[in-house]
Structures are given as C-alpha cells and as structure tokens.
C-alpha cells in the first residue's frame, strides 16, 4: 500500500514537472494563437544556461536565475527579431518555421557544447532523500513540487489579478479592440512570449539535474507537453496544471501497473513485450478519448461569445 502511495506521489511529481513546461506553451498557444514547437528548445537552453552558470559559479540558485532570465531575454529577442512575423500566419506555417528552429538550435547546441551530456548536479543539501511516512523520497523532487506550485499560483495571480493579466485576457478575446483602446498589443505579445520562454528556461534548469542535459533533450518532452495542453484545454493555466497532473499519473501508474496486470493474465514474456508498449500509448489513448468527448479539453478557458 505504501508503495502505491509512493507511486501516486511519483506520478504527481512527474505531472508537476510537465506543468512547468506546459504553462509557458499553453500561454503562447492559447493567447497568441501561436504554435511554438521550439518551446522544447527554450527548455533545452534553460538547462544548458543553468549548467554553464553552475560550472562557472558553483551556485545552483544562480544557475536557475541565469536560466530563467536568460531564456526570457532570448525569447523576447527572438520574437522581436522575426518570430512576430509568424503570429499572423496560419498554423501550418508556424509549425514548419518553428520545427526548422528546433533542428537549427539542436545543432547549434551540439556545436557549442558537444554531443555528450554535460555535468549538472543538485545542490549538496538536496542531493539526498528524505524519509516521509516510512518511504524514501528524493529531497530535490520536493523542490520541483514546490516550484511547480509557486509557478501555478503566481501565474494565476498574474492573469486574474493584475492589470497586465487583464490586458492579456482582453487581447486574447479581441485584439483589434484592445489596440484601438491604445494598448500596444505587439509589446504585450512579446511579453507573453518571453514569459513562456522564461518558464521553459526555469523548467530546464530545475529538471536538468534529474535527467540528462544533452542536445535534443526538449524534443521528446515537448510531445508530452502538447498532450498536456490539449487534454487540459488550450490557453488555460488551470487546464495545464490539472492536465499535467492527469498525464503524469496516467503515464506513471500505467507504466508500472499495466505490465503487472498483464503478468497475471498472460505469459510473462508476452506481458513483458505488450505491457510497456501499451503503457507508452496510454496517454495518447487518453487524449483521443478526451478529444472525442470534449474537443476543447477538460478545463477550457471561458470565452465570451461575440
């Protein structure tokens, strides 16, 4: 039983990890209607910036700050220097252009830092595990959990309670009217895009010490992140949060318990072959079911008709 609770916690924790990535993507996609496949690149850059700053200063906190601010600035610059042209193009153009950026940036990173994974470690104080209710849990994972919650609350406050958030919401429902009222919607878009980038950078910096910092590290995770925002409802922070938790739980528990269930009903060698295969398509099946019954996702943004 305590193992099941531990696995639940692992699932939630993986969900929080996905949320850190999904938060930025859903903002850019939902509010600016811009499909940014290069979101995974921003995450990769965050991890590399953090690793580089960590190597220079030996300070983990500084690494996280450099990654977040650095990727925020990179995203802002990228938007000003050309990506903004894509905002008014159709989605296929955006997919093609940002996919090109993914390939370019992966090679650029390979060129600068090399193909092998680079060194990145958790701060010494957090490298051990804690004993909670009788099971062992890595201390660093709790930091990620906390960071995810802080980001969730912070974004909610920003969008729902501040003037900028109000303008963002207004821009999402009628950008012409907002700009007619004298608001510079272009700069508002730069801010949203950079904010999404900064969040991806923060995610990269925090996840780097758990996984491997290497070229192309954002590509695989991006697909799961897209699943998260589709399930949660595009443009909704709440949807991204709950969607990420659902995907994290389904993926983790499916990976563990599907092969175990199969072993009870089938030959072990068959179970070993079919179990992981089934578990790996679990979240995509979930997405298909959600799309069939609720095409806007489980927690869509409330939009005024007009």
């Amino acid at each position, binding site marked *: 039983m305590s193992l099941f609770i531990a*696995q639940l916690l692992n699932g939630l924790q*993986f969900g929080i*990890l996905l949320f850190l990535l999904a938060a930025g993507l859903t903002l850019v996609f939902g509010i600016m209607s811009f499909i940014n496949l290069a979101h995974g690149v921003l995450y990769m850059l965050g991890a590399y910036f953090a690793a580089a700053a960590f190597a220079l200063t030996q300070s983990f906190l500084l690494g996280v700050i450099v990654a977040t601010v650095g990727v925020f600035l990179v995203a802002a610059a990228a938007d000003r220097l050309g990506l903004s042209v894509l905002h008014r193009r159709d989605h296929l153009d955006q997919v093609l252009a940002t996919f090109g950026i993914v390939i370019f940036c992966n090679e650029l990173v390979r060129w600068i830092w090399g193909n092998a994974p680079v060194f990145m470690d958790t701060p010494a104080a957090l490298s051990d*595990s804690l004993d909670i209710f009788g099971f062992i849990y*890595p201390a660093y994972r709790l930091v990620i959990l906390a960071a995810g919650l802080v980001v969730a609350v912070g974004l909610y406050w920003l969008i729902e309670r501040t003037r900028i958030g109000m303008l963002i919401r207004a821009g999402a429902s009628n950008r012409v009217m907002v700009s007619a009222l004298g608001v510079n919607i272009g700069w508002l878009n730069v801010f949203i895009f950079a904010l999404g980038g900064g969040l991806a950078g923060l995610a990269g910096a925090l996840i780097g010490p*758990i996984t*491997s910092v290497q070229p192309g590290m954002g590509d695989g995770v991006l697909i799961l992140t897209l699943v998260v925002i589709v399930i949660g409802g595009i443009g909704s922070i709440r949807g991204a949060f709950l969607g990420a938790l659902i995907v994290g739980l389904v993926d983790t528990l499916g990976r563990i318990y599907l092969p175990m269930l199969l072993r009870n009903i089938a030959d072990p060698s068959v179970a070993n072959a079919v179990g*992981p295969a089934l578990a790996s398509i679990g979240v995509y099946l979930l997405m298909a079911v959600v799309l069939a019954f609720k095409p806007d996702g489980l927690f869509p943004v409330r939009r005024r008709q007009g």
Partner: protein
Amino acid sequence: MGVQSIQKLIEKDKVDLITGVTFSNVMMAVAKPLADANMIFIGSNAGPGPLAGPQCNQNFFFTSWQNDAQSEVMGKFAADRGYKRVYVMAPNYQAGKDFVSGFKRFYPTPLVGEVYTQLNQPDYSAEIAQMMAAKPDALYVFYPGGMGVAFVRQMRQAGALGKVPLLSTSTTDGSTLPALKETALGVLSGTFWGPDFPNPVSQKFVADFRAKYKRIPSQYAAQAYDAALLLDSALKKTGGKVDDKAALRAALRQADFKSLRGNFKFSANGFPVQDMHVFEVAKDSTGEVSLKTIATPLKAHADAYVSQCPLK
C-alpha cells in the same frame, strides 16, 4: 544515410579499406554493400550478433567486441558473486533485449524482475521505487548515453545507490562519466578495457590522450586506437601494399600488435578473443572520477555466435 556514405566511399572515392561504424543498426545496413564490394572492413564499435554468426565475413575485423560480451561479463560477475535475487532493467528496444539475453546467458538463475522502460524515458522514479520494493541482491541495467545519466542520478537521489549494487553495461562509461562525476561513484560496469590498465601501451595512450584533450579517454577512444594499431601492424607486414587483398587479410588476421587491452587475437569470425573485466566508478590518483578494474570474470572470452559462422 550510412549506406549512402559507404557506397560513396566504395564507388566514388575507391578506398582500399574502411573503418568505423558506431551503431549496430547502421552496421547491419552497410554489411551487404561492404561484402558485395569485397571491401576489407575494420569495425571499431558496433558488433551485432548476425555478423558474428551466420553472416560473418572473412573481410570483416572488429577491434571492439561482439555486442553481448559486455553484458555476458556482468552476468558471469553476478553469478560469481553469488547474488540470488537479481533484477534487470533496460530500454524497450532491440539492443536492450539483446543485452538482457547476454546477461542471462551467464546468469542462469531466474530473475526476480525484468523491466523494459520506454526508450529515452525522462523519469525512472516509479521503476526505481518498484525495484526497491522487490528488495533484490543486485540490479543489472543497460542505459546508454543520456538515459544512463538520468537513471544513475535518479538512483542516487532516491537513495538507492549503495543499498543495491548497480551492475551495468554502457551506463557509466567515458561518454557519461563527465556528466555524472561523483554521482556515479560505486557503480559497476563491464567492458574490455579501462584507463587504469598497467600495460605500457595503455599507459602511454592514456597519458597522451589526457595531455591533448584534458580528459580521461573512453573505451570508445581505446577501441578506435586499437583499430589504428591493427591496421598499422598489417600494413607493415605487406610493405604498405593494399592491392593484394588476400595478403592484407592474412596480415590483419594475425593481429600482430600490442593492444591496449593486453591479450588480443581474432576468432574465426573476425571478432576478438579477449579478457572481459568489471570496473567500478572510483577516483583515480589525480582525484578525477574514473574507472577502476576490480575483477576479470571472463578470460580469453570468445563470443557465443562463432559456432554459427561457416568461416574456419
């Protein structure tokens, strides 16, 4: 891609000999064009089973290892240590399954768990928790590259390293240790060569490599170095001539060179007969995280496929 490059080398550049090839799937794809062109080939990494068995070729020589050897040595090591309850984990693709079957060939006791994870999975916390709950005597894994970095870090963070002996293949090698450093201390892995070998060829190689690249050479650098030494020895025997394929082939087959790994000779199928060792991640005399030889479970080890190779 690989096939195109090989065909360009054979048809356009008209080279006399080809060396290299890292990935087993690429190796299988280029084996046919190489064989059709009657090309002499020195493989420095990939060693897929079919090329050691029924599809072996008298023109192919490998200075690396047959793929299974690196897991067979860990299986033998686990059996020698008398571990009763062994748990294995590997990515769910062909190489992952091959390494597990290599391990089982020399570790006949039934496994307490056999788990295949998704290829390039980012998070192993759930599988590690499951493994710890099974309370195994030892864990064997095959997680190359970035997967190995992630897996070893998460084992450390979960407090599992040190509690369960971690036996591995290609998980803590020269390509991942620079990213892992102290995190990987104590992890065991099996291969044919380590930077602490006392023989003079190896010591000179390590010293020269460190002077030039400022890091400890990996086994991959070592096996490519041996490929160059082998070629050098053969060319000396033929007086630098490469036109007479039969003479060059005979010279290569003799393997008359001082290998980094000490004993070295070829089986009938062109794969090495060599000692296989177990290494522990430990700090070397300069304080750098490196590999330390701790056991040699398989001496003068030939691969399991040579009996299926028609060459004599």
